[in-house]
């Protein structure tokens, strides 16, 4: 499964305002307008519980908060870019600039894991990360992702 299978321009924020982990996760969740408020609250708790196990700040300025859940159907993703950097307790101790939130119904475990592996692979490319950090619009983010997707 690829990120563009679940991401569109409505799910992208190129200038995240918050600089805390909780704050940016809230901002990313708000981009998933197709998920009702009640379910978003549950997912927020589940994402934070997953973060408590081990930070999803995987290093090199990347954060991929994610969770499996019973509260929604399908797989959803949101992408946020922080110009200031977010204290995400990353593995390398560095701030996070690119965040991709992935939430999936628990029954879709195979596609969920495939998507996480895909995201980790495309964001391991330094040039792509730099271009994403400097993107000026959601459309530009989509165009960059199309090149590597």
């Amino acid at each position: 499964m690829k990120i563009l299978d679940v991401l569109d321009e409505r799910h992208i924020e190129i200038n995240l305002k918050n600089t805390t982990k909780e704050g940016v996760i809230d901002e990313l969740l708000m981009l998933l307008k197709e998920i009702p408020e009640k379910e978003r609250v549950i997912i927020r708790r589940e994402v934070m519980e997953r973060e408590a196990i081990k930070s999803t700040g995987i290093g090199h300025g990347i954060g991929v908060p994610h969770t499996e859940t019973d509260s929604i159907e399908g797989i959803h993703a949101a992408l946020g870019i922080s110009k200031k950097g977010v204290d995400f307790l990353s593995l390398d101790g560095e701030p996070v600039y690119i965040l991709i939130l992935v939430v999936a119904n628990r029954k879709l475990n195979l596609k969920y894991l495939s998507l996480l592996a895909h995201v980790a692979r495309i964001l391991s490319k330094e040039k792509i990360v730099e271009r994403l950090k400097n993107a000026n619009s959601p459309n530009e983010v989509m165009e960059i992702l199309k090149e590597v997707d």
Partner: protein
Amino acid sequence: MIFYIFILEKEEYLDDLLEGMIEAEIEGISIIDGTEAKKVLAEDIPIFAGIIHAIEGQRGKHKVILGVSENDTIEDLKKILNDIAPCLLNSGLRVYKFRVEQDI
């Protein structure tokens, strides 16, 4: 359903291969430590001691990885490996695949 057997001689690429398999939606993955028969023969049976040179340059150890997928995703896996560990497409990895039915 497709059943795969991967023989990975370059064990240092195990993480890359596993990530690629996950992205290619291969599931039920199991990893088994393998030993090349030549290594056992060379070490245990004197008459075959001479064949040790045949496995020179490698440890005679490898990983055997089993997995299944609903559809054949080997072309997807090749594209991913070409990105993350292209050397595996030339040497150090053999892949066998079979169309099978799940019984139980």
